[in-house]
């Protein structure tokens, strides 16, 4: 088991408060790793640092052996670190297909990228079709994203994150506000993503989902990792039980 995504000594301070304190993470490919913890444990701050939205104050992030610490958000996404948001943040006026197509942009050189921006739209639109089929949205490809149901918005966000060359997909509370059948569908989708060999990092409060689907669980409390292990180990870990009871 080799970790595609390695995080060492990650630190984030907010006005003296250590929101994330010397965190180490190893996220392997083809597995679902869940990050859980009471509210305020620093989970979303970790996501924001890993996706380049906030800069870590210290620490090193490496993806498939390459140092990606401090890259801007769009560079992180192109390196292969993709994410969804706690509340779906789609491009509501674009169609479902366009939402995915614009996320496929991956050109490495400026000239190639400029060419693609002006002339390669059709190719991306075709590629988007395959991703939509993967998440089961091909029938509403030409709808504006705002017409989708809540569950489908989540799926579109995942399709968009998978666009390009995602190596790890970070999913922030994907089932919040979903009904049980939507939760089941989303679990199947995450399983499909795992089977495609991607690393999945999941933040989730729904314990049924976390314990059912995760290969490993990491527990965060006050910005510090207090436990790590299989769902079975985490379920009986006294530190974890204490952290949840205390909060």
């Amino acid at each position, binding site marked *: 088991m080799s970790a595609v995504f390695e995080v060492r000594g990650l630190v984030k301070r907010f006005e003296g408060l250590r929101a994330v304190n010397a965190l180490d993470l190893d996220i392997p490919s083809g597995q679902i790793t869940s990050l859980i913890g009471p509210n305020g444990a620093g989970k979303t701050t970790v996501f924001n640092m890993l*996706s380049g939205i906030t800069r870590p104050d210290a620490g090193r992030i490496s993806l498939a052996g390459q140092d990606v610490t401090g890259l801007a958000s*769009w560079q992180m996404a192109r390196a292969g670190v993709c994410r969804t*948001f706690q509340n779906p943040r*789609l491009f509501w006026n674009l169609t479902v297909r366009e939402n995915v*197509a614009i996320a496929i942009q991956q050109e490495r050189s400026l000239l190639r990228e400029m060419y693609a921006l*002006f002339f390669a*739209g059709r190719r991306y639109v075709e590629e988007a079709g395959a991703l939509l089929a993967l998440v089961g949205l091909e029938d509403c490809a030409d709808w504006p994203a705002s017409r989708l149901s809540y569950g489908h918005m989540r799926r579109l966000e995942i399709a968009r994150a998978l666009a390009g060359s995602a190596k790890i997909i970070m999913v922030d509370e994907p089932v919040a506000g979903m009904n049980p059948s939507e939760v089941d569908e989303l679990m199947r989708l995450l399983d499909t993503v795992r089977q495609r060999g991607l690393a999945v990092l999941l933040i989730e409060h729904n314990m049924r989902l976390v314990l059912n689907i995760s290969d490993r669980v990491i527990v965060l409390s006050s910005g510090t990792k207090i436990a790590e292990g299989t769902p079975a180990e985490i379920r009986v870990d006294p530190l974890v039980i204490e952290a949840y009871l205390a909060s």
Partner: protein
Amino acid sequence: MSTPVRLVLIAAVLSAPWLITALGWRPSYLLQIATLLPIMMIASLSETVIAGFGGQISVGQAGFMAVGAYATALLVGSAGWPWLPSILGGVVATVIVAGAVGVPALRLRGPYFVMATLAFGGIAYTVATNWIDVTGGPSGLRNLEPPDFESLGIHPDHGTFYIVWLVCFAAIALVAWFRETLLGRSLLAVREDELAAAAVGIHVALVKSLSFMFSGGLAGLSGALLPLFVGIVTPDTFGTNQSLQILAQVLIGGMELISGAIVGTVLLLVVNELLRDFAEYQLLAFGLIMLGVILFFPRGVVGELRARRAASGKRRP
């Protein structure tokens, strides 16, 4: 716009010089207005791209028009180039200037970006007025030889009329194409949610800069056509009022729509001409129209009509 409507519009433009002559009411004045209209439409389209698609309002588009107009006039007058390459040269010069202005200015957002474009417009105007060796100062660049339409057996005014309309149609098609490109789609995404756009790998700064250059190039094209039309370039054409007029045109028509830019330009040009004899009331009328549009057509005339039609279509499927 449906195909029959388009065909009617094209037929109207093609036959306009004859219709105006046949009408017999101040034909040279009417033809002037009909020639100015497409030039202003192109200027409006430049605002549609940056403000409508990009969500970044510019009040400096007249500055880009000035760059296009002066570069073209210098190429024709001083360098002795023919008109077609000179106009292209004017557009290229404007794209370069838009890149130089846009890359730093687009780091700013909202009102700060507006201020930056306002400043650019002011600088362009000041340079045009004071760099007398190059721009001719307040009296401008004059005596530009018009293209030789007469050897082709075309009346020069008609020749200019057809050329500016041809360029205008090409510009409309270009903006429609731009909207469908990956760049156009990415720009719409950036306008909606910059953070999410970056999170899915969109190079936000590049998308904004290229779009701003595209928009600047359009404004430059509009400016480059002016010396062809009037034969002179003077700085007072490119004041802040002109930039505000361009913004008003797209606001009135509908910022996010190409048809909005077209309709808004027609409406404002007609109003301006009707009020020409009442110069002291012109600003008052202008203000009232803007107020009316903001109150009753917040999405612009075309935008509002569309939304209403879509809403009634939903009720009666």
